[in-house]
């Protein structure tokens, strides 16, 4: 499980780009990419190294009033785990 005091930041190889075919965002990295849903895009935008996971949970909770912070934290940690297992986050192997 991801530590909540960590400040997630993408490794330099990752590029976030809008995909006008689908209206969604893509995370591109060598040879491949991930298609993000709306929530994942919001999280991805916060992976700048500025925000801790706690900060990010708080921001998302405010944006999505109807979802509980626990639920948001759980989903966020899952997503960050996916990113880190793929080596897409800096210093979070």
């Amino acid at each position, binding site marked *: 499980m991801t530590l909540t005091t960590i400040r997630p930041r993408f490794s330099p190889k990752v590029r976030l780009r809008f995909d006008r075919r689908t209206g969604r965002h893509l995370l591109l990295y060598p040879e491949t990419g991930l298609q993000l849903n709306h929530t994942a895009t919001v999280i991805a935008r916060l992976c700048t190294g500025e925000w801790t996971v706690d900060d990010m949970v708080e921001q998302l909770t405010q944006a999505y009033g109807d979802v509980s912070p626990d639920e948001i934290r759980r989903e966020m940690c899952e997503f960050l785990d996916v990113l880190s*297992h793929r080596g897409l986050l800096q210093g979070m192997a």
Partner: protein
Amino acid sequence: MNNESRPYTLIAELTYRCPLRCPYCSNPLDFAEHGNEIDTDTWLRVFQEAEELGVVQLNLTGGEPLLRNDLERLIEEARKIDLYTNLITSGIPLTFERLSRLRALGLDSVQVSVQSARPSVSDRIAGVPSFNRKLDVMRWVTSLDLPLTMNVVLHRENISEINEFIALAERVSADRLELANTQYLGWALKNRSALLPTREQIERARTVAAEAKARLRGSMEVLFVTPDYYTDYPKSCMEGWGRRFIVVNPEGLALPCHLAHTIPGLRFEHVTQRRLGDIWHHSAGFNRFRGEDWLPDPCRTCERRVLDFGGCRCQAFHVLGDAGMADPACSLAPGHDFIESARAQAGRTTGVPVLFEYRTGRGRSAR
């Protein structure tokens, strides 16, 4: 456009020229007889048209793409339309200055092919001294903070070096290590008896790779691709014919895979004569093996058809003489005995020193 056939990657084969002479290169043997390379402006238009089709990844390859002196311009323009640009190279000939320049212009990642982890063997396989320079190039790549993929084409002579390859990739801080196996098409098919590893070699290598993959998870991605001569089912070739990839070859021919035009009877078109979008959607060659209508038995009713699309068309053609048949690598396919006998032969010839038959003339391929 439905998402079923949306290309994500354009493989731009910029040139057939290459300073190396790898015996397993699958590029045409008679490339000197091929036509001219398409020019800078044509490539830039192709990039643009590919991006409009949905392409987000651009692989610049060859031959050796470094031999194109407009590489700078191509990378710069690709970046302007937001393509993620991967340079696939042997690393020869490159200088640190040129690599820095390419990076500054927007290059996103570099893949370097390594023939062997042992300098003398590597140089012998490549046909020219090149190992030390490759090592330098890989260090330059990571020192510039570019993600590095180290690509190894495995075959009988180098597969026992698997631990050394992993150690080398760690030493140069590779981001990915691709341990691929030779595809037995073209030249490699002719040299197959010298190249095909035995089942024991494959099993050992797979175990070592799996251990490294687990140990390095999150810092280096380790990919081991079992040769389909040793799997029960074929791989999905190019993730399906005309589904995810477009290859444009040095002469401007647009293809679903880089060998598709070696299949007789298929009609492919040149980007100089038709827009890439039209070719993708309407050319007879791209449509020939799309969807399920063309599927032969036993694929037609097989559950795996959504995973492998019946396998590789080129392999069906080059091994069985009919591109419309199931990939003979499949254990359910009619022509599978051919693959079985090749495997048996690999088992019998264990221990015999490998002698590569060299290409003559200016050989090629970084891949």
